[in-house]
């Protein structure tokens, strides 16, 4: 085979590599630049009247969940898991914070009542916290270690196994 004839299959090699790379990656996945970075500070005026800030939670592992009552079914699927995880691990120092985005307060309160939320939840006026965390949909969950760094971000409803693994990693300070 002359070099000219070999040129055509050779030229297709980069194209095949590009296609192989494209097919192996999730086009919907957007890597967060916040991973392994200090979590942006936030203040949430929680629905029960208190104000919560990340500054105040320093030294504690935090699970920060973004949700909305209109986010169906994903937020409805993971809501019981958030509450049960909070109840299971709160005595070990785990903090769970819910940020309700672009929602009506009445609907948000109904959502919290429906799933018997006891962990602090508050609205995000102006979506400032959401944008600061690079949120582009709900639900999204950030796992923040005791040093205040984001160690994991999950987009979509959390599965029990994944939640357990990430909470254990947070508590062990990995």
């Amino acid at each position, binding site marked *: 085979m002359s070099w000219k004839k070999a040129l055509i299959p050779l030229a297709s090699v980069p194209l095949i590599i590009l296609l192989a790379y494209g097919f192996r990656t999730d086009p919907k996945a*957007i*890597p*967060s*630049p*916040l991973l392994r970075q200090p979590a*942006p500070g936030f203040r949430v005026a929680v629905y029960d009247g208190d104000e919560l800030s990340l500054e105040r939670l320093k030294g504690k592992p935090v699970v920060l969940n973004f949700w909305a009552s209109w986010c169906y079914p994903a937020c409805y699927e993971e809501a019981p898991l958030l509450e049960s995880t909070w109840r299971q691990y709160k005595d070990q120092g785990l903090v769970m914070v819910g940020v309700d985005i*672009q929602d009506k307060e009445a609907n948000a309160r109904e959502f919290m009542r429906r799933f018997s939320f006891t962990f602090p939840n508050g609205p995000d006026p*102006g*979506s*400032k916290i*959401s*944008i*600061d*965390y*690079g949120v*582009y*949909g709900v639900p999204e969950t950030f796992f923040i270690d005791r040093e205040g760094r984001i160690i994991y971000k999950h987009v979509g409803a959390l599965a029990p196994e994944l939640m357990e693994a990430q909470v254990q990693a947070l508590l062990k300070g990995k």
Partner: protein
Amino acid sequence: MWSCIGRVGAAASGSGHRGRWWPAGSRLCLALVIAGIVLAAPRPSWAAAGTAAPDLEDRVREVASELRCVVCRNLSVADSPSDLAKEMRNLVRELLQQGKTREEVQAYFVSRYGEFVLLAPPKRGFNLLVWGLPFVALAVGACALYFVAKRWTVQREQAGPSVNQAYAERVRRELQERDGSSGS
């Protein structure tokens, strides 16, 4: 208010005795009328929306048009009607009002969403491929076209006339015969 308007009208058509026709009371009425007109006039959309001056709005639009609406498909933050894009526009406005430059505002959004948030990838590093590859492909295509066209031309010249020689000879002979017969 209506009585004030009447008196201002009278003053405007008066005889020029300014001191008489523009008394202190009339001046107050005139001021009230102007204030009323200004307040009653339709406010520009940026003022009604509680946003900033047009110049700032232009800058907001300029910056927002370079940012991707992260919940849409191929829409900029400037063009998207989504709630999140609206909040992002508000944040752009707030950052610009704080004195941040266009680059600083972009850098903030990139630090939160990654380069994905930019509608046009920055012209550096691996991204240069995206910007340069179309021109490289165009140049390669043009070269290929040139060489192929040149080869076709050379082949055609080497091949000579494409008409069957025997057939051409027969046509020539028959034409000669016909000319000969018509001449006699």
